[in-house]
């Protein structure tokens, strides 16, 4: 039994359970809030991107290109150091708030691509049919396009959510007390890398397993042409 304690002393982990829970809470808050914001922003981006007006789609395309071609870490730094320079009030916001803003802006571009793919998968005739019965742009969006796009969007959206949860770990670099930070704290106080980093890895794996089973459940729920054509 001794060699187990040498390699992985779970009693140390038990002492830090409170900190791990605290970190996990922040991780989940950051993931949930930025997921919601990213989906909303992403839908707007996708709509701008698909517009025929250059003033709408050009900035949207440029934004997406910038986000997709630069590292998330650099974007987080840009928001963390840059936003207070642009908006003085942002200097008083917490690291978590700034981190959530960075994650939302980052994921909005990815969500935009996903939503765009979903909307593009709705056959052209559906929109024309809506026009023929006299629906306005918003009505067509609400009753025809978005419900169909939703089914094609959900599976890749869940995949991106799994990535988003993993990406929250980068917030530990700008001093947000997330799940990874709890492990870093344990390591810096006790100098026990196994207990800290393996616990963290297992925690993220557990979240991943939940996300994986969720996406399987959704796959089964949507089972039908929508799933087989999309993604």
């Amino acid at each position, binding site marked *: 039994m001794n060699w187990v304690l040498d390699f992985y002393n779970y009693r140390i982990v038990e002492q830090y359970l409170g900190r791990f829970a605290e970190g996990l809470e922040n991780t989940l808050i950051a993931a949930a809030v930025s997921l919601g914001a990213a989906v909303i922003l992403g839908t707007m981006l996708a709509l701008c991107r698909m517009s025929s007006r250059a003033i709408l789609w050009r900035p949207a395309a440029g934004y997406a290109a910038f986000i*997709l071609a630069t590292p998330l870490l*650099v974007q987080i730094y840009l928001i963390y150091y840059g936003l207070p320079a642009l908006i003085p009030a942002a200097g008083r916001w917490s690291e978590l708030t700034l981190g959530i803003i960075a994650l939302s802006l980052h994921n909005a571009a990815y969500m935009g691509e996903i939503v765009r793919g979903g909307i593009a998968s709705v056959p052209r005739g559906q929109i024309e049919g809506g026009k023929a019965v006299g629906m306005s742009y918003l009505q067509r969006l609400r009753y025809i396009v978005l419900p169909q796009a939703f089914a094609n969007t959900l*599976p890749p959206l869940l995949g991106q959510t799994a990535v988003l949860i993993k990406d929250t770990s980068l917030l530990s670099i700008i001093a947000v007390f997330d799940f990874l930070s709890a492990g870093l704290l344990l390591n810096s106080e006790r100098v026990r890398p196994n207990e800290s980093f*393996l616990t963290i890895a297992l925690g*993220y794996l557990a979240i991943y397993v939940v996300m994986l089973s969720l996406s399987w459940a959704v796959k089964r729920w949507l089972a039908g042409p929508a799933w087989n054509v999309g993604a």
Partner: protein
Amino acid sequence: MGGQTLARRSGVERGGVAVQHYLDVMVSILPFLWTGFVQTFWISLVAIAAGSVLGFLIGVVRSQRVPLLHQLFGLYIHVLRGTPFLVQLYVFYFVMPNTGIEALQWSSETAAFVSLSVYTSSYVAEIVMAAIDAVPKGQWEAATALGLRRLPILGLVVLPQALKLAVPPMSGVYVNIIKNTAILSVIGISELTRQGEISIMRFPRDVLFIYGAIALVYFVYCYPVLRFTRWAERKVGGTRVVNLD
């Protein structure tokens, strides 16, 4: 006092001063950015090469559905895709040396290289397997009918077709790997982001400008690859073989 004289100057002059200032900063950080870019370029290239070879082998083995190996490598892929790269980096950097095995006492460069390659391999393996699976079954059957054995079929018939399908998602992964090299800065690899942090110590007031310059360098490096991905996607037929979360 300097601020007061500055405030009294006309707007145009002040604008000129600002431009001059940013030019000065740019000139003095340029050598740092260049060293950082070279480092980023090499580490991403080496990790992509090593990770692709490893991932290719795993993908081919997995596509053959050998009972135990298939599940074992499946677990490998899930573990690597289920944990953040930062955590993997910390595990390779902190936990491996802690095992006490002499061969695992890695320098930060080795830890960075190994973790990035292993991470790459998990994505490449998934793509290669999906691409092999996407080659129609009839190709296997026709080749079997011609009297070929499993390995020649794989090498001469299936892989040439599969690799074509694998090009677009593969280059998408490469963009991801290049971007992930930024994370290596946390264990002190002197790549682009780290060089930027060093420059910021010299010009603490120009944080935003320096990070902007760094973002621009990454953009110049990644955007062509991204465009290539789109182009290849259209060329291959637009079918996404794999869902690249």
